């Protein structure tokens, strides 16, 4: 269901979102606690940025500063060249689903929530009803349009919260833990919707603790720890950067002693009696020649995933 996104109207800045050197500190019992320091982020149309970090790292504070809900002590935010802290019109360009919040009224139906929040975002009643019906259809909630939100499943409530955030077709969607507490089916549903939304041109800033989902969905990753961004790169580059160049070779049967000796001479040691690690790519084909004609179960390049990257960076910073 194609729909023009408000970002179409903004051509001057290629970035939908630019957050520059954001800093936020809170005072508690006379002490200053810095929640976020010098956080800069950018996001282009049709792009998903996974914003990752451990609990209390500063993700939600950063997202709320971007949404205009928390005022930064330093730095600035632009959404399609507009400042959400000074220009209320900028809020027409942003939608948000905030973690830990209900985001919608439980004593109203999905259709009523969509219409009400659409009007609050500046739509006419008629346009809000029409858009609401479209979104219910897209989010497969049409059959529940007249059911009270409190009677919906957690997954349906979350889908509705995302639909509400999309009512005014924002250029930027902020999703704070959109799959938290959802079962497998609902998680798959939300992932499908995120892909559809981004395909329509919306830029998405996504925080999640489910790193496999971040790896699957994101174009770029920014990792924040203790209020500071420790890395930002495309997801593929980051994984490549943390992946080794070694290969794991696994045979079906134990490798005979004679072949083991030959492998030793090449500088290759066995990991188990059926597997070996080839760290020097130059000798890979010589290793395979030595093993020939033994049946090989797998040859796999040492590939990191986002969880490995995340843990290395976060633990590295803590060490």
């Amino acid at each position: 269901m194609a729909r023009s996104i408000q970002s179409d109207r903004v051509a001057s800045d290629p970035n939908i979102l630019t957050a520059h050197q954001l800093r936020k500190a809170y005072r508690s019992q006379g002490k200053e606690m810095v929640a976020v320091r010098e956080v800069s982020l950018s996001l282009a149309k049709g792009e998903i940025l996974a914003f990752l970090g451990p609990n209390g790292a500063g993700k939600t504070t950063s997202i709320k500063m971007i949404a205009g809900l928390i005022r930064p002590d330093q730095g600035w935010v632009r959404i399609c060249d507009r400042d959400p802290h000074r220009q209320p019109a900028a809020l027409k360009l942003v939608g948000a689903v905030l973690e830990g919040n209900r985001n919608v009224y439980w004593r109203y139906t999905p259709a009523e929530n969509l219409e009400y929040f659409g009007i609050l975002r500046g739509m006419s009643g008629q346009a809000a009803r029409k858009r609401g019906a479209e979104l219910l259809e897209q989010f497969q909630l049409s059959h529940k349009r007249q059911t009270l939100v409190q009677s919906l499943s957690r997954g349906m409530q979350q889908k509705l919260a995302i639909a509400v955030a999309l009512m005014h077709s924002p250029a930027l969607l902020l999703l704070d833990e959109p799959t938290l507490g959802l079962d497998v089916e609902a998680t798959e549903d939300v992932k499908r919707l995120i892909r559809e939304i981004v395909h329509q041109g919306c830029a998405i800033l996504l925080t999640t603790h489910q790193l496999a989902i971040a790896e699957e969905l994101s174009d770029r990753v920014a990792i924040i720890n203790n209020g500071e961004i420790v890395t930002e790169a495309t997801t593929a580059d980051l994984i490549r950067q943390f992946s080794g160049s070694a290969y794991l070779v696994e045979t079906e049967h134990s490798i005979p002693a004679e072949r083991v000796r030959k492998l030793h001479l090449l500088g290759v040691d066995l990991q188990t009696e059926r597997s070996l690690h080839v760290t020097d790519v130059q000798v890979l084909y010589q290793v395979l020649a030595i093993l020939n004609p033994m049946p090989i179960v797998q040859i796999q390049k040492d590939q990191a995933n986002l969880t490995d990257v995340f843990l290395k960076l976060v633990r590295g910073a803590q060490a």
Partner: protein
Amino acid sequence: MIEIFWAELKRQWIQQRRFAIDSIAGIVGLAIIFYGLFLTTQYLAGPTTQFGTRLDSIVVGYVLWTMVSFIIGDIAGGLQQEASTGTLEQIFLSPFPVAQIFLLRELARLTVTLTQMVAILVLLMVLTGRMLTFSPALILPLISVIIGAFGLALTIGSLSLLIKEVRQILSLLPFVLFVTILVPVETWGMPARLVGWLLPMTPGAGILRDLMARNQGLDWGLLAIAFLNGGLYFAIGWLLFQQAERVAKHRGRLGGY
């Protein structure tokens, strides 16, 4: 702005219809009070007999008292509830000023409540055969009082944004209202009267007493003072709310409870 008002009115209507038993209980309660006023005005109206002992005056006094206490506490209560249920931040994501949204919400509630009151009064007039006559002149001072009440509502709402828990403050409201609405400032001598007119809603309430209890004509000069008073308190409430919003955003306490 009109769209938001209609949306709020629709929400009110949905609530009334969806929780029909609660709504009916409220309407029945209101009908019993009004019926009581029709039967024995002095006893049930209590302090609002300040506005005159005729049935019309008692009814207007009661409606004024109810509306003002309802308006003043409701915005703060609404903010508190939205913060605790987790929808407040979604309202703050609206491009419209949040104070405006809550005022329109209040206006919608007021419209529903006033409609119910009028319907009950008409029904009672038909049933009892006792007719009420209201001078159109009452409307203007009533509006000035309501504007002031909205200002006070925003003031308490701004406190609610910052400190979240305002139940104790709200429990003090009847005493504040007692001073501001029921004390006959217009009978005081100068300069005490000038000071009295600075209190919220007092000039408007004074005009209502002049019109209903003392059978005097509308004093346009005093009416201007009443509107100035209402406008002043509204402006103070609006500015305080904007300031509270800024402080809450600075402290990062908008959605927390």
